[in-house]
């Protein structure tokens, strides 16, 4: 091998490609002070600089209900997948719940959202029915898309959910287009789009950042930074340390927040939506979060130590919210009641989905083309 011949590069690249800061730091025992995108940081250690007002307790309880609903739905789906009831790539959002819920409650009916294949939490937070959602993932006829889209393509226009996407970052320009439609029509609708840390380096992100910033589109870019792109930690492939600082290169406003705290997310998204509606253009929010389950059903998680996951449990969305509720005087019993209620609701949703009929074979050939035109529609 020619590796010994490398001459000039040895100084800074002792061993293979350029070494990531975090790795270098780990080896030298150096600090990670400037590296906010580390796997070990807790979401609460994020650089939020926004004011976070306390939300009404009933609203918080409602949010808690949603959070449990998402959590249990995801667990039910994982169980169904293990039983072989679900194929394909199913990505759950266990640990991500607060990002969806905080945002959904901060926006208005009529606003739009697009998101990634990891989109169940968004669907539920935005109001989609759990039973029909599970049916969709299982490919049943009662699914929103009649089982055609499945887990990676959650959609429900009546709820503003304009589509999850299987191609990393492809949903981002779609949201810009929704924001553009709102702008061109003189509406005050805002669009929000969710994507992961790994999506940051798809070319279309850059193109959309520029166009949205230039045209001051009423758009919110929301990065759910869980520090992993599938099985690869983000520091291994990213040249930028602080994701939230990057969009400033386009003159965009941005912030890094605790994505596991519904109140923080709610405050950040509210602020961004206000900016958008006032014509000041897009805002970029980096919500620091962590994925507590595998990248997708079946993931053996060999790429991260159990201790890392363990540490993150300390600040996962349900824990954070439960603590908050207790601290503000809500009785344990009230919380348990919600837990039980939701547990039942999920059982019902699962039975609904499991007994939903398979779509007819003839359905295969429908929905490719529409036969109508603008005159008729």
């Amino acid at each position, binding site marked *: 091998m020619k590796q010994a011949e490398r001459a000039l590069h040895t100084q800074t690249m002792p061993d293979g490609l350029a070494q990531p800061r975090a790795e270098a730091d780990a080896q030298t025992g150096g600090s990670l002070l400037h590296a906010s995108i580390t796997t070990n940081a807790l979401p609460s250690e994020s650089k939020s600089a926004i004011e976070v007002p306390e939300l009404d307790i009933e609203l918080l309880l409602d949010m808690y209900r949603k959070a449990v609903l998402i959590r249990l739905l995801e667990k039910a789906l994982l169980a169904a997948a293990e039983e072989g009831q679900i194929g394909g790539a199913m990505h759950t959002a266990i640990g991500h719940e607060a990002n969806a819920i905080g945002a959904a409650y901060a926006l208005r009916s009529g606003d739009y959202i697009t998101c990634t294949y990891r989109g169940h939490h968004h669907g539920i937070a935005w109001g989609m029915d759990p039973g029909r959602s599970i049916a969709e993932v299982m490919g049943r006829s009662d699914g929103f898309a009649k089982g055609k*889209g499945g887990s990676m393509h959650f959609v429900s*226009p009546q709820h503003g959910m304009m589509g999850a996407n299987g191609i990393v970052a492809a949903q981002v320009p779609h949201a810009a*287009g929704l924001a553009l439609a709102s702008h061109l029509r003189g509406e005050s609708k805002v669009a929000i789009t969710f994507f992961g840390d790994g999506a940051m380096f798809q070319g*279309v992100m850059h193109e959309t950042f520029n166009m949205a910033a230039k045209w001051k589109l009423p758009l919110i870019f929301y990065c759910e930074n869980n520090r992993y792109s599938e099985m690869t930690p983000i520091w291994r492939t990213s040249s930028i340390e602080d994701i939230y600082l990057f969009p400033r290169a386009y003159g965009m406003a941005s912030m890094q927040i605790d994505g596991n705290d519904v109140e923080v997310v709610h405050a950040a998204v509210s602020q961004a939506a206000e900016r958008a509606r006032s014509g000041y253009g897009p805002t970029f929010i980096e919500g620091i979060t962590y994925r507590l389950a595998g990248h997708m059903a079946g993931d053996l998680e060999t790429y991260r130590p159990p201790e890392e996951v363990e540490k993150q449990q300390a600040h996962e969305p349900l824990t954070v919210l439960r603590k908050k509720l207790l601290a503000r005087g809500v009785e344990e019993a009230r919380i348990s009641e919600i837990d039980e209620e939701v547990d039942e609701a999920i059982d019902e949703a699962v039975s609904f989905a499991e007994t939903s009929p398979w779509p007819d074979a003839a359905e295969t050939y*429908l929905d*490719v083309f*529409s036969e109508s035109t603008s005159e008729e529609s």
Partner: protein
Amino acid sequence: MRRTTYIQALNEALREELQRDEDVFLIGEDIGHYGGLFRVTRNLLDEFGEKRVLDTPISEQAFMGMALGAAIVGMRPVVELMYMDFTLVAADQIFNQIAKYRYMTGGLLKAPLVIRGQQGGGKHYGSQHSQSVDSLYAHFPGIRVVAPATPYDAKGLLKSAIRDDNPVAFLEHKMLYFTRGEAPPPEEEYLVPIGKADVKRAGSDLTIATFSYCLLQALDAAESLQQEHGIDCEVVDLRTVEPLDTETVWESLAKTGRLLAVHESYANCGVGAELVARAYEEAPHLLRAPARRLGMAPVSIPVSRALEEEALPWKEEIMATVLEMSRR
């Protein structure tokens, strides 16, 4: 009827649709203040303003995706790709997103948008500015593909495309832009339906099914074949590539018994092969000789005019193939 250029016909279609429906907007590179590299969108920004004619950066992926986003809430974007070769730059948005959106959402959302621009060879633009993408678009279900050859059809089909509730790839050809043809004046509105072929020359010996600029080459070839060899070709202008109006082709075939499909996109896995395969699926009894197809040679389209001519499936090659088929 008055005569107009192909470019003028397109410009009128866009203007009339912008006027008719305020959800229509144009988006693309250099199309606004400048009026389009090929002047198809000339004067439209002046008339309709910056909110109806949007100048973009060179970001085909983003503005294609934005068009989809706007379309799913009922806007009707008309996206210009300066050269249809750039389809490949935005291919994910076009084929993984736009083509599939209606299906993946179980029909909840539709994507009524038009992707238009010019394609084709003949002007020595070389490998990356001369490709014909009709077969590529047709391969993926979910997008209608239209490629008119005359100013009349161009105007009528572009208006239909904008009104269609499906995504439509509207493929122009650089060799057609300055051609002239009859078309009613703007006061007399008309549409040409998507999905209907048109017999542009009646004949009895052999059916040439083609579209876009190849139609002109085929008509020319048919004249020469008639005069020089007494072979009387019927020339069917498919006009739409997806869906293919095979009915009209089979009707012609019922008369002639011989089929030659011609197009400028690559022959390999092209529309011509498709038409041949369908002929044997749907109408084998009509064929009195093996059906054939002609397409671009399997090369990357050279700049040198000496070579480009050789690669193009134009008049000479059409004549040679017809003669060969007639000898059987």
